[in-house]
């Protein structure tokens, strides 16, 4: 059941029960291309719908969004991306300790899980990936690093992610990739956009 929350005069916040429902709603909104909708912001439990009040109204967008049936769009339409990772992160041993497993097992679980980009945020090109392995669950670092190199692969809670640019951050770093997460020379600069499925493979 989608709840519509007021978000000023130019947006509606659609709230659903969980991440899966949010992804499904985002996919059907994206496929529906409602007139006057200028931006969609998927998140953990919501999709923010920004609109142009010169073209449409809050009421019209709420009605149209409520009429969408989940499954109207193919969630897998986002495609699949394979990211080669060198598992050499500074927090790899600590993550293994925290989970009570070996470093090799951390790598096996990270590469064995099926990941999906749930939403973007933090920085352009940063995708929050959710996986199907509930055991990969680690707290953020108690003290964030002031500089994390671009391409660092991290874990936080049940999310994984790849830093698109050098930036500060508090995720546990388990590896690195040379794949570019954000490249303005591409038509869509972000490699990881919501709905894309991701698999990590060991780069040797």
């Amino acid at each position, binding site marked *: 059941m989608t709840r519509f929350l007021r978000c*000023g005069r130019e*947006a509606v916040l659609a709230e659903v029960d969980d991440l899966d429902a949010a992804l499904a709603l985002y996919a059907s909104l994206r496929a529906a291309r409602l007139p006057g909708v*200028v931006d969609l*912001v998927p998140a953990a439990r919501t999709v923010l719908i920004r609109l142009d009040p010169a073209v449409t109204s809050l009421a019209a967008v709420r009605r149209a969004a409520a009429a969408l049936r989940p499954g109207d769009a193919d969630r897998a339409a986002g495609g699949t991306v394979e990211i080669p990772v060198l598992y050499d992160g500074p927090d790899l041993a600590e993550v293994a300790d925290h989970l009570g497993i070996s470093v090799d097992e951390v790598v096996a679980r990270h590469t064995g899980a099926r990941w999906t980009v749930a939403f973007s945020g933090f920085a352009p*090109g940063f995708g929050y990936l959710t996986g199907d392995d509930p055991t990969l669950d680690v707290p953020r670092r108690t003290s964030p690093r002031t500089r994390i190199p671009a391409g660092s692969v991290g874990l936080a809670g049940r999310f994984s992610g790849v830093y698109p640019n050098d930036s500060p951050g508090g995720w546990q770093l388990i590896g690195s990739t040379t794949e570019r997460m954000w490249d*303005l020379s591409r038509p*869509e*600069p972000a490699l990881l956009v919501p709905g894309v499925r991701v698999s990590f493979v060991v780069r040797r």
Partner: protein
Amino acid sequence: MRMTVLRTGPLTVIKDAGRPGHAHQGVAPSGAVDRGAYERANALVGNAPGAAVLECTLGGLRVSFDEPAVVALTGTDAVLTVDGVAAGEVVTVPAGAVVAVTMPRRGLRSYLAVRGGIDVPPVLGSRSTDQLAGVGPARPAPGDILPVGPPRPVGPPPPVGPPPAPPARVATGPLEVDLGPRDDWFTAEAIATFLGAEYTVSPAGDSIGLRLDGPALTRARSAELPSEGVVRGSVQVPPDGLPIVFQADHPVTGGYPVIAVLTPESADRAAQLRPGATIRFTRAPD
């Protein structure tokens, strides 16, 4: 035509109508912080909506052109001068003349438009510099030469209405909000405080957000809110209870509850608030 940047003052950036449609990639719309003043500057010189202008914080901007140019200044009571002589809101300047924006006494962000618009290459469909995401044209620096586009091939500029109310009123008139999306995360007393108390604009503000000092707002729920999309004008309340008003370069998502959202007109007025200004919030009529 080309514009030469002679001085930039404390902060001058290139802005336009913004960069919608990229939030799913983690890029916010950005665009001019005071949209109304930006649109008016373009209208005054006869530009199509969406043309790029210079957004100048606290004056000090000086430029010149290699051909006669039509320029306009809006947003504050800063004065547009041509070779040191005060000009009107819109003026034709000769080639080589020094066009300057004085320090405003009221308001914060002035918009300098030139007929033809600033024609730097767009990034993701926009010429706005998003200072948070680091997307868009570089900040102009003294000595930079910026291309100016061809004028729109139409007749005289369309008439524009009278200038908006002077920004001085911003300091005393309440900013209008619609409650939500997360007003139910706050106690009834917090909502009453939010809609009644006086807040002071803190010095730690920029085009990303305005921080406010005043009575803290108490939450009715202690749970952590999963991050969700925010808009320009969202009033977010972090754990210290002091509201932050998001401006054009806001992050795509926020992790604290948004108690209310400013109307677009009030978001424009907030763009002109200086540190130390006192404000109140009131509910906007439906």
